[in-house]
């Protein structure tokens, strides 16, 4: 299964769907727990195993849109787990925790149902570009099918009950990943952060150096899960928040093209130069330069590359994918060398 996965691009990096020059991917996740069982922090090993087997068989019966494969995360080796994290199919938390747990993944990598994560079930649907309405239809349908078979813990006042009260109610987490190099370059990004905070949305850096607000990738997600319907939460994203940020990013990109085109081209082509000729490179530096290339391609400043190549490199240069492709365990230094090698080869071919 894992070996099949790595032969193709990950769904979230497909680079398709509406607004995909700015919106990398959209995701909705639902948290559910089986009625009559304790949450996982209080579950015994036996109960955990029982949950795994109940959920596994019911997920198989609820699979929609083609075949799903169940992965026993507990039995997978560390590198394979890491591959799933890099492809956004399971959370890092799920990969690194202990005990009986799994994930059912659809062949197209859009659907992943995590078993025994923080909640008994974490259903996730992911697509590239801005496709929240479509995702909601799909995930709601999957949830219905599961609900035909399993009684989920539900409370007339609080809604779907979750291990952590910050998820209670709808149990929904909507996340949109954005590429905002224009706002970052012109320094206007802070305003977006502030506006998002006012709307009770969480913004966090993605691919960053671990510190806040480094890098050009940002993930925006809702924090409130109670007191609003799923549709209201989703519409807030797809009708208000995201279109506004897209508009803002486009304004900044236009400003760059009008007033700072030399500096812009310099940035893009320098990044191209570094990536094409480096002999060793860290993952952070890779992300920075790939971001510039992505911007260059999307703004029509660099035509000798296509988006697919850039997207592919985002994935291939991640530590686990890199090691999988080289077929051996590599330490940090070796990875940096392998990474440079891999990038150089792709850029020379294309």
């Amino acid at each position, binding site marked *: 299964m894992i070996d099949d996965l790595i032969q193709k691009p990950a769904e979230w990096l497909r680079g398709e769907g509406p607004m995909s020059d700015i919106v990398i991917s959209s995701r909705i996740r639902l948290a559910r*727990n089986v*009625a009559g*069982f*304790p*949450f996982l*922090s*209080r579950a015994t090993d036996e109960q955990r195993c029982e949950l795994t087997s109940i959920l596994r068989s019911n997920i198989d019966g609820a699979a929609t849109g083609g075949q799903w494969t169940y992965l026993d995360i507990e039995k997978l080796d560390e590198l394979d787990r*890491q591959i799933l*994290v890099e492809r*956004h199919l399971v959370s*890092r*938390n799920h990969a690194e925790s202990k005990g009986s747990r799994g994930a059912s993944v659809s062949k197209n990598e859009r659907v992943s149902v995590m078993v025994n994560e*923080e909640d008994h079930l974490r259903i996730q649907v992911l697509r590239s570009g801005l496709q929240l309405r479509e995702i909601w239809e799909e995930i*709601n349908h999957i949830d*219905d099918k599961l*609900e035909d078979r399993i*009684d*989920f813990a*539900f*409370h007339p*006042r*609080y*809604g*779907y*009950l979750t*291990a*952590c*009260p*910050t*998820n209670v*109610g*709808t149990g929904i987490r909507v996340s949109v990943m954005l590429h905002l190099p224009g706002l970052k370059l012109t320094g206007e990004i802070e305003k977006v952060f502030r506006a998002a905070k006012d709307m*009770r949305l969480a913004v*966090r*850096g*993605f*691919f*960053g*150096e*671990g*510190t806040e607000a480094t890098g050009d990738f940002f*993930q925006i997600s809702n*924090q*409130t*899960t*109670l*007191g*609003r*319907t*799923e549709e*209201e939460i989703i519409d807030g994203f797809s009708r208000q928040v995201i279109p506004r940020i897209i508009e803002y990013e486009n304004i900044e990109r236009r400003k760059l093209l009008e007033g700072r085109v030399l500096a812009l081209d310099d940035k893009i082509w320098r990044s191209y130069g570094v990536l094409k000729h480096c002999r060793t490179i*860290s*993952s*952070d530096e890779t992300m920075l330069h790939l971001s510039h290339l992505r911007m260059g391609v999307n703004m029509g400043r660099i035509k000798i590359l296509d988006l697919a190549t850039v997207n592919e490199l985002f994935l291939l240069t*991640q*530590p686990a994918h890199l090691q999988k492709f080289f077929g051996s365990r590599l*330490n*940090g*230094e070796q*990875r940096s060398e392998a990474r440079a090698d891999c990038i150089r080869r792709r850029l020379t071919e294309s």
Partner: protein
Amino acid sequence: MLYCQQCKKQAATVHVTEIDQGEKRERHLCQNCAEEKGYTAEKVVPFGKSLAGFIVQNVGAKELAELTCPHCELTFVEFRNSGLLGCPGDYDAFERALVPLIERAHEGTSHHVGKIPRRLGTPRPLENDLVRLRGELTKAVNEEKYEQAATLRDQIKTLETES
């Protein structure tokens, strides 16, 4: 030079701020160790674990200390330390302590208005009215239309006592 906290050999170039149980914790790592620990891809802030800092102290400490769920035997103190509940029954067992916390995390509300499991049937008309009114109330509060909000609150109260 600041050395990496993990290997203590290389310079720390990656600085991570984690919020764990309401406490900020800083980690300083070198590039290699950071990658090893997975800090360079998606940075995961354990959202649930930040709850402890949220606890509202309007229930007496002694009373809180004695709260225990009769089903899973989790104490409220244990919940406060981990940020995670032990079983669905905790929502009722810890109700008085939890409601302020839930309201704080969810813009002042503790009433679900979204999807309902099909096995529980379709919502009754009264519930639908409440859903709608609560939505309007949130909007009114957001738009600082306080008079309208007060009227809506009264209507909701009336409906709630009817049900």
